[in-house]
Every structure is written in structure tokens, then in C-alpha cells.
């Protein structure tokens, strides 16, 4: 795209001039871009958060191995070593009867009411808490542990894990499908809008070509216009997304504090950068698609 530097002034001038002149058309273009990218960004945030929640639930899936009352001291240590030796196991933690009772007490509330109602005795067994490196291995590891001597009972979220994996898989799939579809909608809308702009300016293009403008001279103002429109649309989408996400996230956190929400400003920044790039990209693609037709002959 060879271009003498001194023509750039005119090209920028042309873009601004046409932006001013085709007011409502540009409004439509910016509006559709903003709406499309907002929905796109919202969908991406939904997927990110679903993944985030699923991920944290997954990593919380642990195996509880309850020990027979007779197992004490060295036997516990041996058992611990044996379990730790299983390759899929990440860590093993011993939880004594007393700790288990204290935990329970905390969950039920303070004031020692629980201990009082139990009459001073502790019915809870010693246990081992086992976490695997990959949550998918929970099933196999649990089976292995239950066959070890001294282990009374093994508990983990049987079935829940499988269902959770299925759920997150579908959420990701549906989410990504929606994102792709909405992205295509955005391209279509922008291309259409720029085609309208171009139709409104077909006389200008005709005269440009007639007096000997190069193809790139004709293209640049439209490309620049597309870039400006796409960027403006994505900036609006980003602003709305930022404030609505912040509000929504704080409301959700207030209502359901146990639900972990993605709150990393780096991830948000990456998303917003991506949306801006997407807006500009859509503007360029839209312009080029629409321009192609007018530069034949």
C-alpha cells in the first residue's frame, strides 16, 4: 500500500468529514458493534466465571478416608506413607478425632453447645484427607485407598464429580457456540453498515476513480472509518461491561458469598484488549468486504 506522506492529511480529513456527514449511519454502526461486542464480552465473562467456579469446585473435591478406631500411632504414619506413594495423590493430611470435632463445632456455631449436647464424648473417627493432582483421578484413588487395611470407610463426592465435569463441559461448549454466533452477527452488521456508508458515497468513489485516485487512496478513508467505528463501538461495550460486571459481581458476592467469582484485573484487561482488537478487526474486515465490490473495473 504505497502512499506519499503528504496525502495522509487528506485521507484523515476525508474520514472525519464522512464521519460528520453520515451521522445516523455511524450511530447505527457504533451501536451494533457495541451491542455485539457487549454480548460477546458478557458471554466470555460467563464462560470464564463458569470455568472459574467449576475449577474451584473441582479442586475442592477431596477424599476422606475414615480409619478404624484401633489404628493409632505408627499405623497411621504407615498408612499415610502408603497413600502418599500413589502417583496421582497430591497430598495427605491427618485429621484427628479432636480436630474433626473442632471443625464440626465451628460449622455448627460457637459457645461449645455441640460438645455439651454430646456429653463430653467424641463419636468421630480419625481420618485422612487426600487430594489428587487431577480431580479426574478421584474415583480410582478412592477405590485404592478403601482396600488398604485399617481404613473403615472412604467418602468422596461420588457421582457429583462426574456430573460436575459434564456440566462444565456443556457450559463451555454452549458458551463458545454463542460467542462464535454473536461474533459472526457482529461482522455481518458492521459489513452491512459500512456497505450503506459506501452506498451513500458511491458518487464520491466514482469521481475519485475518474480523476485517477489509486485504489488505496479510495480504500484508506473507509478503512479508517471502519477502524474508528469498530474502536468506538468496542470502547462503549468495554465501559458498559466493566461497570455492569463490577456491579453484578459485587451483588452476587453479597448474596452468595460461597460462589467464587473471577476478579483478576489482568484477565479483565486481557478481555478488554481483546474486545478492542476485535472491534477494530471487525471494522477493517467489514470495510474490506464492502469495498471490494466498488474497486472492480
Amino acid at each position, binding site marked *: 500500500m504505497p502512499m506519499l506522506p503528504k496525502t495522509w492529511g487528506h485521507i484523515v480529513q476525508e474520514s472525519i468529514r464522512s464521519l460528520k456527514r453520515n451521522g445516523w449511519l455511524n450511530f447505527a454502526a457504533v451501536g451494533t458493534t457495541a451491542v455485539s461486542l457487549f454480548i460477546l464480552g458478557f458471554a466470555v465473562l460467563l464462560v470464564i466465571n463458569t470455568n472459574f467456579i467449576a475449577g474451584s469446585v473441582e479442586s475442592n473435591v477431596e477424599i476422606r478416608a475414615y480409619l478404624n478406631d484401633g489404628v493409632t500411632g505408627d499405623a497411621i504414619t504407615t498408612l499415610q506413607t502408603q497413600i502418599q506413594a500413589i502417583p496421582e495423590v497430591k497430598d495427605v493430611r491427618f485429621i484427628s478425632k479432636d480436630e474433626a470435632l473442632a471443625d464440626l463445632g465451628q460449622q455448627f456455631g460457637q459457645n461449645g453447645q455441640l460438645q455439651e449436647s454430646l456429653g463430653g464424648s467424641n463419636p468421630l473417627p480419625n481420618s485422612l484427607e487426600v487430594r489428587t493432582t487431577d480431580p479426574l483421578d478421584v474415583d480410582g484413588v478412592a477405590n485404592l485407598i478403601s482396600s488398604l487395611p485399617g481404613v473403615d470407610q472412604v467418602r468422596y463426592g461420588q457421582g457429583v464429580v462426574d456430573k460436575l465435569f459434564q456440566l462444565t463441559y456443556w457450559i463451555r461448549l454452549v458458551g463458545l457456540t454463542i460467542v462464535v454466533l454473536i461474533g459472526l452477527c457482529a461482522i455481518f452488521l458492521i459489513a452491512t453498515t459500512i456497505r450503506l456508508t459506501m452506498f451513500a458515497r458511491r458518487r464520491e468513489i*466514482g*469521481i475519485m476513480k475518474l*480523476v485517477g485516485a489509486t485504489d488505496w487512496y479510495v480504500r484508506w478513508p473507509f478503512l479508517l472509518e471502519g477502524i474508528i467505528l469498530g474502536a468506538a463501538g468496542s470502547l462503549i461495550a468495554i465501559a458498559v461491561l466493566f461497570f455492569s460486571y463490577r456491579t453484578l459481581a459485587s451483588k452476587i458476592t453479597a448474596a452468595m458469598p460461597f460462589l467464587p467469582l473471577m476478579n483478576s484485573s489482568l484477565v479483565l484487561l486481557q478481555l478488554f484488549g481483546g474486545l478492542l482488537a476485535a472491534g477494530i478487526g471487525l471494522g477493517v474486515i467489514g470495510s474490506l468486504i464492502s469495498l471490494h465490490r466498488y474497486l472492480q473495473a
Partner: protein
Amino acid sequence: MIQFFNVSKVYNSAKALVGATLQIDRGEFVFLVGPSGAGKTTLLKMILREEVPTRGQVYVCGRSVTRMKHGEIPALRRQIGMVFQDFRLLQERTAYENVAFAMQVIGSGRAEIGRRVPEVLEQMGLKKAAGMFPKQLSGGEQQRVAIARALVNKPALLIADEPTGNLDRDTAWEIINCLQEINNQGTTVMIATHAREIVDTLRQRVIALENGRVVRDECEGAYANAT
């Protein structure tokens, strides 16, 4: 300046031009006449390379238009000024801006534009109209703006397709006089026209087309055949 060698143009099955051969030299003033659909516009479009011949060769300024690459078309068109029956001015720009546009588009500098545009406007007697929009101008003034735009890049050739078609008799003469003046200053001028009175009065070279064929090419010709 312009050479056509046995040029034919076929649209689908309709023959717009059949075996046309002609030569126009630098500095000539030529009328192109013939009934509607005789092929005048097709012939002019080939000079601008808006159309490519089905057969034959077209040379403009010594270069083959037929074999020209897409990227070379702008250079060709910069040597040709074009004027139309319907003026083709940009309505939302002033007379000055319309003329300046033709210079901006080919990458002329600001200073050059600031010098050249007023010069051409004055040459066309449009000094007072510079800041006005086409709607505020008469037909004759609009056509003069269009001619100014065609001339501003100093083309070697000026082509006018029915330049007086939308104008009354007096204004038509005014425009023709303008074009003659331009020709006197050395620019080759080619006018496709239906204006019998003008052609018959001026007695310039006349090329007549009928059904896509060159049927007459006379030095001091008339609109219709003398016989």
C-alpha cells in the same frame, strides 16, 4: 494522442462497437456524433479504460490501454479530464472543494492546491461562485465547475460526454466557447454531442458513429451527412 485499431466491443450478444479505427492527434478539437446507442459512450469509456475492447487495440498517449495493468489505470486517468451531461458534482461540497477534491485525490500538496484551484476557477469565470454549493449555482455554472475540476490537474486530453445536454441554447454556447478556449491553449478536446446547431456552426472535425461503426470522419464536418 488517441488511436483505435479495428476495435470491437460486444456486450453479451449486442454489438456496441464494430471494427472502429480512428486517430486523434494532439491539440485537435473533435465532435463525436451519432444517434443514441451508436456507441459514443462505449468509445469514450474505452479511452478511460472503464471498458476493455472485445477485439482490437486502443492507444492513449502512446500506451496500450488494452494491455494496461490495473495499477496503471490511475496514471492514465490523470492525463484525461472528463465532463458529463449531469455534471457529477459532489452536492455537499462547495465549488472550490469540488475542484480541490480532484487534486487531493491524486496526492497534490496543500500549497499547490491553494495556488492552482483559484487559478482554474478564475479561468472559468467562477471567482464569485467558489464558496457556493452546486444547488446554489445555475446549470451553466455547475458545468463550468465540472470543467474546472476536469482541468485542474492539467490533463492532455479533455473528454466531454453530452456537456450541453442539460443546458439551454445560450448556456450551451457559453460552455462550448469555454471548451474551444481550452483547446486553443493546447488541450486536446473531444466532445460527444447531439447539438446539431453547434456542430454545424463550428465546422470542426466530426466523427460520426452509427450502429457501432465509424461511418464518417470529416475535417470540417457537419452534424449530418451533406447529401
